[in-house]
């Protein structure tokens, strides 16, 4: 089965969290997987959004790249700023998000790339 790629760029603000979440679950929902898995994807994307909001790059947009196919759903968020943007925010929010992502996803990584940090997660749908 071919892999489809869906790209969504939104302002990195909380009010777009729902749009991104709904897009992700709509993509997975089409594939006939149990709703348990759909719900995991929902939770994962919600947590990934924490990174997006807290590490937005100048300009404030963030890009979500989803792929579906070959029994997998992947979501890549980035490029993001390497450092936390807001003064005074501690890291516990991200550590918490990372804990949840690690539990909910089959693969989860934070990757440093030349253009910034990327959050990558993958959920096996088979």
């Amino acid at each position, binding site marked *: 089965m071919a892999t489809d790629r869906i790209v969504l760029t939104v302002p990195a603000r909380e009010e777009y969290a729902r749009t991104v979440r709904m897009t992700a679950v709509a993509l997975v*929902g089409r594939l*006939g997987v149990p709703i348990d898995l759909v719900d995991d994807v929902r939770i994962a994307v919600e947590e990934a959004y924490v990174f997006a909001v807290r590490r937005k790059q100048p300009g404030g947009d963030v890009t979500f790249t989803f792929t579906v196919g070959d029994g997998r759903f992947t979501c890549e968020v980035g490029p993001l700023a390497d450092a936390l943007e807001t003064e005074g925010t501690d890291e516990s929010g991200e550590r918490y998000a990372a*804990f949840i992502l690690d539990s909910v996803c089959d693969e989860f990584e934070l990757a440093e790339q030349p253009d910034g940090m990327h959050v990558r997660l993958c959920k096996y749908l088979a």
Partner: protein
Amino acid sequence: MPRRTHNQSRKLTWDKQHTRELFIRYKRDEDGGARDELITMYLNLVRYLAHRFRNRGEPIDDLIQVGTIGLIKAIDRFDIERKVEFTTYATPTIIGELKRYFRDKGWAVKVPRRLQELSFKVNQAVDRLTQEKQRSPTVLEIADYLEVTPEDVLEAMETSEAYNFVSLETDRNTDGDDSFSILEYVGQDDQLMAVVDDRATLSAALKHLTPQEQRILYLRFFRGFTQTEIARQLDISQMQVSRLLRKTLRVLRENLVREVLE
């Protein structure tokens, strides 16, 4: 005889017997003092619910005031013959009042009626299909069953989150074993421990969860159970697990970290 004191995590529990007496005095004897006492007694519930809306830019005092109107409506309409706890009855009324307030201000907490109804139907469909098929149904199966589109189902599932104010009382009562605490399962070098700096912080955050919620958290994240497996184990519906799980994650985040994602 010394009275047993309630521990801190139970500050949202109300005295059922006293509530009932007050309602009888108010409804049968038309005792206005009893009504006032009920209002005072349940202001904590209003405060608790109003806090759920605190990040929407309205002063919390205003929200409490609006919520109190809902509380008074609930007290006036409550029928003591019905076999339902007052908190169960009052919670949706108070939330309804708060939501109406935001809606009247033209803000985006509105949930179309169509979706509210669909969300309810999706809930029932998941239960029924899970039983029929002995596994968690797919979105497509639910959509077929209800003769709606898969997108409708997903949107309804998202929506039901907004109505996820399960009665606090029911939460406790359906939980036979009160003693469960996820803290017992969190090791020193655990990932969850790495999130917070010390056990006291985690312990304080977990106080906001009922034993049932803690158990769900434990089964999902420490034991890797699926939602369907958890539902079977706790004898609740998969949708309930889904909602409780999301609520649990949110409550934890709100208490562990400062920022909140809507």
